[in-house]
């Protein structure tokens, strides 16, 4: 994340990492998760699901911060994120 | 808490007897909306229910009144409402919801004269066909007709028992005269009153299906919070209670909810006979008109006519088989009812040409005089 100055507690703050899970066949392709992902890591995939929609796909693996916004904005219970291993502290 | 059953002799109106019958049957919830001539039932319940741990609520209209009793029924309590013509019309949609979701409840209709506002303070029996067919779609329910305050007490108990046993809304089709007249009502000891409770489910909750019926076509009914996680809908539904938008599901559901009534007619239908043994003319009547019929039978007998009375205590489902059988043996039927022909046409249909069927009816407002029936007997037979 780019800061114009470095916050004082930057050493202590750990940005959580998440893994996005997509249940393809529940998706109806509204695109809300893609549009409103704060890290812009989702895209429509090329593939079709069982109902003929293009479910989202993660384009930038490892950049999910596990904010769960895709999970809560999704009207279909088709996407959610789980916390992955914490990032290494430098 | 005060005793629920007020054992003893009382001089009370039919409306009050109806309320006491409900309480004796275990009613714990009353959803009300005032309307003449049924208001006294609500007033009595408002005073009595809190004493016995029940709840009374006056809703904003009759639609809300019936909706509230359906909701209350799913919490596991016995619930009821009471109304008259205009309110009964407003209840029709949710009556269908009660039938479709198989929700036990009792609706009393103290009939007055219609159509529309009609004669609000005067008697009528013009809602009988509405009771049978008033809600949209095809269905079966049970309607009983009391003919005296004592009968109001017993028929309301029976209404609760049938509604619990068959999981169906049961209508008590009283009328203004029966509701407002005071007579001696004997309330027996609580232990002598037979009270039926709805079948409850048992067994594994995760394998429970809401509409998986037993041998009599009735499925056990859990209450909210029992942990069965039921979904109840007025949409056509499958055995699980889930909406199923197919003709097959519709057929299956209808077969069962109609069948549970049609296949148990012997248990549901109750009639009473008076001097029927040698009768070749049968007066058919129900509710307050039974009193006309009884007097007419005696007067006609004195004149040498072999007349008997068949009193329909259960009006719906209609005792078709019984009328068919009687029709083979008698000259004719005279239906006495305070309308211009409703149950009469059912009698005519079942008589099927084997016996004559005539109506002694009235446009409503007052009880039919026995002389009118007598005149009909003399003229027609």
């Amino acid at each position, binding site marked *: 994340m780019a800061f114009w100055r470095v916050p004082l507690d930057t050493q202590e703050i750990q940005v959580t990492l998440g893994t996005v899970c997509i249940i393809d066949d529940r998706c109806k392709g*509204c695109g809300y998760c893609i549009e409103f992902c704060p890290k812009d890591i989702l895209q429509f995939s090329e593939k079709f699901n069982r109902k003929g929609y293009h479910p989202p796909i993660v384009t930038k693996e490892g950049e999910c911060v596990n904010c769960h916004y895709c999970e809560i904005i*999704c009207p279909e219970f088709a996407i959610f994120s789980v916390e992955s291993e914490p990032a290494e502290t430098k | 808490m005060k005793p629920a059953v007020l054992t003893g002799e009382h001089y009370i109106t039919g409306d009050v007897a109806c309320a006491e019958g409900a309480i004796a049957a275990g009613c714990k919830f009353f959803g009300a909306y005032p309307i003449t001539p049924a208001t006294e039932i609500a007033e009595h319940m408002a005073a009595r229910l809190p004493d016995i741990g029940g709840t009374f609520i006056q809703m904003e209209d009759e639609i809300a009144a019936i909706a*509230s009793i359906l909701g209350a029924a799913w919490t596991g309590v016995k619930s009821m409402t009471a109304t008259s013509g205009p309110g009964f019309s407003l209840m029709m949609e949710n009556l269908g919801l009660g039938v479709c979701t198989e929700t036990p409840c009792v609706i009393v209709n103290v009939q007055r004269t219609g159509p529309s506002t009609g004669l609000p303070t005067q008697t009528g029996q013009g809602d009988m066909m509405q009771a049978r067919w008033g809600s949209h779609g095809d269905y079966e329910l049970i309607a009983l007709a009391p003919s005296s305050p004592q009968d109001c007490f017993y028929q309301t108990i029976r209404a609760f028992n049938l509604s619990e046993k068959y999981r169906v809304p049961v209508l008590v089709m009283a009328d203004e005269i029966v509701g407002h007249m005071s007579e001696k009502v004997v309330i027996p000891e609580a232990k002598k009153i037979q009270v039926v409770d709805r079948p409850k489910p048992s067994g594994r909750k995760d394998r429970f299906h809401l509409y998986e019926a037993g041998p009599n076509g009735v499925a056990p009914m859990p209450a*909210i*919070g029992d942990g069965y996680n039921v979904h109840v809908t007025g949409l056509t539904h499958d055995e699980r209670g889930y909406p199923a938008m197919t003709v097959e599901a519709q057929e299956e559901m209808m077969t069962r909810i109609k069948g549970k009534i049609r296949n148990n007619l012997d248990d549901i239908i109750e009639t009473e006979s008076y001097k029927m043994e040698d009768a070749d003319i049968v007066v058919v009547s129900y509710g307050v008109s039974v009193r006309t019929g009884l007097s007419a039978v005696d007067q006609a007998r004195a004149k040498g006519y072999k007349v008997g009375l068949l009193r329909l205590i259960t009006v719906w489902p209609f005792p078709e088989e019984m009328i068919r059988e009687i029709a083979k043996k008698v000259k004719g039927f005279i239906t006495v009812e305070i309308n211009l022909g409703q149950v009469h046409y059912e009698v005519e249909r079942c008589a099927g040409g084997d016996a004559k069927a005539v109506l002694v009816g009235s446009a409503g407002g007052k009880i039919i005089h026995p002389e009118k029936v007598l005149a009909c007997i003399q003229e027609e037979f």
Partner: protein
Amino acid sequence: MTTNPKKLAKPPEHPLDDLIRTERIPHIWCPGCGIGTVFSSCLSAIKATELPYNQFTMVSGIGCSARGAGYIKLDSFHTTHGRAIPFASGIKMARPDLKVIVFSGDGDLFAIGGNHFIHAARRNMDMTVICVNNLTYGMTGGQVAATTPNMAKSTTTPLGNPDSPFNLPLLAYAAGASYVARWTILQTRDLTTAINEAINHKGFSFIEVLSPCPINYGRRNKEKPIDTMKLYQDHTIIKHGANPAEADIDFGKGVVIGKFIHIDKSTCDDRYTEMHRPCIDD
């Protein structure tokens, strides 16, 4: 079934799967429809109460939003058009310990069911009413509703709606609701918090949730689902404690959202118990 597990379920199970009738998913709601988001938010709020699930019941009327009751794995009731609130009132008065949630749409709750709404609010009937407001009758194909903005097009107002819509928070407040909030589906976290707060609030809680109906409202009013969401993002003003009288929906001026009312007052069932069962312990 009756427990409320705090642990996150393992993938590929969605964290709300324990509250959904998964065998009925995908649900009937159209692509881009916001009802699913409101529904999901409601489930999260239920979960966050950490109360046993069998203390909850959901009641709905008829319409798209009302289908919610069919997807929640709780005792749930899909009743008749407009009658969810009196049905729920019956449940509440017969079993005051239950948490009763009414989940329905604007047409159901405020046109055909308007009378029931104001009376339940007047009595401060202890229930949570979630109104998914998509400004139209979605299920029947986009007819004008009591909430459709003035001049908006619908199938029954092809030249535009000549009438003014209800200001729902004002209506709820005036009728006596003790918790009133409005959010859109975009502020999902605030919405979940509000629903959670409303469930915990003793009294009549009302939450209006603005939600897109891209197929039957958006299409006729030149709004793609993302456009509607952008409206929610750019033309809403969060103003807690705002006067509900200033909460008209006018995206031109900006729509006020937030928690408007949160007051304590006695509820219908409380008063009934106090007055009628003074010696309940006897």
